[in-house]
């Protein structure tokens, strides 16, 4: 008994016996996850504040005689008059490989019932983006597996490509397809011991769900699980039922998790689904904090909110970690209005956008990528040569086709050239149709596009082109696997590869005619 007491005494003696200085405050107002605190004269902006019952908050408003804190956790336990104190710390989240395959909340706490997170490192949620010197130009491709995007709007590692469109146009599907494709590519190269061969850079994905319905999040997780892609993915959730503060902080937590990969020589892909809801949460917090409101009642710093988040995505040089973080933010438009406040903000921040049109979606053209309004400002430098060879002019041709198709509706007499252009365009549109959650490997995309560009689909019925392209892929996969491997490894179409591809496509045509 006495030894136990001695042990406790020793432990007490080991502690610093000096008086501890604390800076405290008292809650004078509490509403909607925001506390106004009297005191805390030493608090710093964005500092973590400790409240009773283990509740934490962040000091966001430093005013002359009070401090506005946003709160995490069960706010109902707090009362006016409760004491809080500064911590001298910033909000941090666990980071590292231990998070792969896990579903965590905005603070990095597990939400999947798979036990505690095995992570020894943590990163601050708010961090200044890499400056000019650490950055490297974007020149490595990040293949989405979606033919329309990889051929016409290519994305590079470290790029920020916005996915924008109305509700129910397939924005999340594009993001999830991209995650699935990364897992598929990683699986192609992974060794039995879980490592990757030298020179291959796997891409790890982070999916941040902000203000999404729990049912939608569950569906996304199920898709990733079924495709065996969850082992390369981290899911950060702040569903619609969460308080606004968690939804506000979730993308920043996701960015911190992604930065660990970037700083440790790895490549990460982060999807923010979606930033429209994120802006709405920030508006809610700002209005409760009584910050002056501007256009559409958003606070004046809503641009900075998204610019500081998206600037954290970059490709950094060897001295600075030699990794990358590619961002795919999602924005939901209202009735196709891309000129609204938040869409224009994020369009101007990102390096391009994939615009999804409701009309195309309803016509059955899925993914409903609008070729005219979509652009990638840096991705073409990251495109592999093989894709450039077969898809160099495809965007222009498709845009011309759309224009001609609109014009052709008014007249019946068309010259032969226009007719052939329309037919070719119609076939390309069909070829670009792709079912959800079935990303195409880049070598199969090259083969299909090469066949289309060289008129191998011209004699086939337009309506059947989607099915025929799947049949061609199947044929190549089962009978010409070596050719596909060659295209994948060489990353370019050499004369002998083209000859082999030609003979393979002709063989396939015999099977379908």
């Amino acid at each position, binding site marked *: 008994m006495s030894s136990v007491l001695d042990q406790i005494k020793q432990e007490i003696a080991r502690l610093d016996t000096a008086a501890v200085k604390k800076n405290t405050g008292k809650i004078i107002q509490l509403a909607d996850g925001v506390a106004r605190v009297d005191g805390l004269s030493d608090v710093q902006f964005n500092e973590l504040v400790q409240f009773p019952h283990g509740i934490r908050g962040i000091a966001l408003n430093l005013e002359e*005689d009070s401090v506005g804190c946003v709160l995490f956790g069960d706010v109902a336990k707090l009362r006016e008059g409760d004491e809080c104190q500064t911590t001298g710390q910033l909000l941090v989240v666990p980071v590292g490989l231990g998070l792969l395959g896990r579903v965590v909340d905005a603070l990095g706490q597990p939400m999947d019932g798979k036990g505690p997170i095995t992570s020894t490192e943590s990163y601050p949620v708010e961090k200044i983006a890499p400056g000019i010197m650490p950055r490297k130009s974007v020149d490595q491709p990040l293949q989405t597996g979606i033919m329309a995007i990889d051929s016409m709007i290519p994305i590079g590692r470290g790029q920020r490509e916005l996915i924008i469109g109305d509700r129910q146009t397939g924005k999340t599907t594009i993001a999830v397809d991209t995650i699935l494709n990364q897992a598929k590519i990683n699986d192609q190269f992974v060794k039995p011991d879980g490592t990757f061969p030298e020179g291959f850079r796997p891409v790890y994905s982070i999916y941040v769900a902000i203000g999404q319905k729990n049912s939608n999040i569950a569906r996304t997780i199920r898709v990733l699980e079924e495709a065996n892609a969850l082992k390369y993915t981290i899911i950060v959730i702040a569903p619609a039922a969460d308080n606004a503060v968690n939804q506000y902080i979730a993308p920043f937590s996701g960015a911190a998790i992604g930065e660990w990969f970037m700083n440790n020589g790895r490549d990460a892909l982060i999807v923010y689904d979606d930033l429209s809801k994120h802006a709405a949460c920030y508006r809610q917090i700002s209005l409760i904090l009584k910050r002056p409101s501007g256009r559409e009642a958003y606070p004046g710093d809503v641009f900075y909110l998204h610019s500081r988040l998206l600037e954290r995505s970059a490709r950094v040089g060897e001295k600075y970690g030699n990794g990358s973080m590619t961002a795919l933010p999602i924005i939901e438009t209202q009735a196709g209005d891309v000129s609204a406040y938040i869409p224009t903000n994020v369009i101007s921040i990102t390096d391009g956008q994939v615009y999804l049109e409701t009309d195309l979606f309803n016509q059955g053209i899925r993914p409903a990528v609008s070729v005219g309004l979509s652009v990638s400002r840096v991705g073409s430098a990251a495109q592999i040569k093989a894709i450039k060879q077969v898809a160099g002019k495809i965007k222009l041709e498709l845009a011309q086709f759309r224009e001609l198709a609109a014009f052709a509706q008014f007249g019946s007499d068309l010259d032969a050239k226009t007719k052939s252009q329309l037919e070719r365009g119609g076939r390309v549109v069909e070829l670009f149709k792709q079912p959800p959650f079935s990303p195409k490997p880049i070598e199969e995309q090259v083969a299909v596009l090469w066949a289309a560009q060289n008129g191998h689909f011209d004699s086939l019925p337009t309506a059947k082109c989607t099915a025929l392209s799947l049949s061609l892929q199947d044929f190549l996969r089962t009978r010409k696997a070596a050719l596909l491997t060659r295209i994948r490894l060489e990353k370019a179409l050499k004369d002998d590869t083209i000859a082999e591809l030609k003979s393979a496509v002709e063989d396939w045509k015999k099977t379908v005619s």
Partner: protein
Amino acid sequence: MAKEDQKLRQQAQRLASLSLDSTGQVSPARVSAVLSSLAARTVAPLKQRALLKQYEAAVKRELGRSQVIIEHSGPIADDTAAIIAASFSTKTGRVISAVTKPNDSLLAGIRVILGDHVYDASAKARLDRLAAAS
């Protein structure tokens, strides 16, 4: 609304500074004078109430800055409070008075409160740290 709040706060701050004497201490006589002058005004009761609440908060802050509260568990020597007050007066450069307050929840030791700064040398704080460390 926010502008009105700010105006009220500034007004209350001005009144609080009028309530200080030449040594920078809150003077009861000056506070009474401020209150009677406010009572003489013909202002809507709601507005008057809001201003008085802001004034109360400002005076409380001033009092907090010039008064050190020494919470203790068990007996405290007479001169300890005076020594602590003198030490804080030197540190802050203003006259600081001391008030002692028994607090058995501290178990042992003392806790000194000056404004929103708390200097905790109690057994309870040490045990709390021990609990947090384990």
